[in-house]
């Protein structure tokens, strides 16, 4: 890499993932400019930072979107690009894109009012899952067992006040083993994969799921890579479930954590991410 190249790390906090990225960059002789999302300002004309490429590690979806759009405006490539993050960060848009690419996903119906949400739940059938269109770590997701419960949950969601809580993303409850599968895609390959085991129907590592490394089957690899490509590619964690009908993709995460994955597989995921960033920078 040329000595003049500087990697921008756009971040909220330094978790193990970001620390490993800093270490992997240092090991490759890549200077890093830290861009704290709470401190950076974005004038319409670029000034004040050196980075030649920005790796987004902000945990805030809203901050990520505006920042990535600004970096793009300044002519600075980003990993992942604005388009990818805006798509994957919104479950409605992501589902549409995956469906357009012919990728199997859980049956999903979107409703724009509480009344329509009740109809959507009837269409999907009980039990069903209600998810906020934007959000992560399993936050504010609800498994709904019957119409009475649905009315209460919808009333609570509406009372939260934010317009996004009055957009209802309704999904079938997939009868799966007590686990889901995650493929960590970097560019055109899966660098590591794992099971996330949990007795809770939500298998987020952030909710305490146990991780176990896995060797992806051909079916899983093909689906995960296809899903990543469908949303625009980059550094993505593709989450899949084993439904009775076969594998379905239920989420593509655009700013994935990989602490649990690194521990479960021993793979140097941070190194793979930095190598990919350097590859993108050469393009």
């Amino acid at each position, binding site marked *: 890499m040329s000595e003049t190249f500087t990697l921008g790390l756009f*971040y*909220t*906090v*330094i*978790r193990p993932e*970001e*620390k490993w990225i*800093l270490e992997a960059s240092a090991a490759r002789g890549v200077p890093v400019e*830290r861009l*704290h999302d*709470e401190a950076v300002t974005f004038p319409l004309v670029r000034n004040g930072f050196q980075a030649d490429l920005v790796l987004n590690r902000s*945990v*805030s*979806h*809203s901050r990520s979107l505006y920042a990535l759009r600004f970096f793009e405006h300044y002519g600075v490539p980003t990993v992942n690009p604005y388009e990818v993050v805006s798509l994957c960060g919104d479950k409605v848009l992501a589902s549409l894109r995956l469906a357009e690419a012919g990728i199997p996903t859980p049956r999903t119906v979107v409703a724009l009012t509480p009344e329509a949400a009740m109809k959507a739940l009837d269409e999907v059938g009980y039990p069903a899952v209600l998810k906020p269109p*934007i*959000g*992560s*770590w399993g*936050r*504010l997701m609800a498994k709904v067992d019957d119409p009475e419960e649905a009315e209460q949950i919808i009333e609570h969601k509406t009372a939260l006040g*934010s317009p996004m809580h009055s957009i209802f993303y309704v999904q079938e409850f997939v009868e799966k083993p007590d686990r889901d599968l995650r493929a960590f895609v970097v560019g055109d390959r899966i660098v590591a994969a794992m099971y996330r085991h949990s007795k809770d129907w939500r298998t987020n590592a952030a909710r305490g799921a146990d991780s176990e490394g896995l060797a992806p089957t051909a079916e899983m690899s093909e689906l995960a890579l296809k899903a990543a490509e469908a949303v625009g590619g980059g550094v993505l*964690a593709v989450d899949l479930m084993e439904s009775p009908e076969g594998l379905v993709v239920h989420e593509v*995460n*655009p*700013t*994935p*954590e990989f602490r649990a994955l690194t521990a479960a597989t021993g793979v140097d995921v941070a190194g793979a991410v930095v190598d990919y960033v350097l590859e993108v920078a050469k393009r």
Partner: protein
Amino acid sequence: MADCPECGRAIEKSNLIEGEIFPCPDCGLELEVTAVEPFRVDTAPREAEDWGE
């Protein structure tokens, strides 16, 4: 050396870097390194609704 804002436990800088989050070894509160020279810690930012992967 800095103190945990919750329980007062003395926190050593060791190899912590600015911005790093870590749990207080005594009370478990999530802390953030707000400066390294001089070394300061504060309560880590609270998770917002749009935070995630």
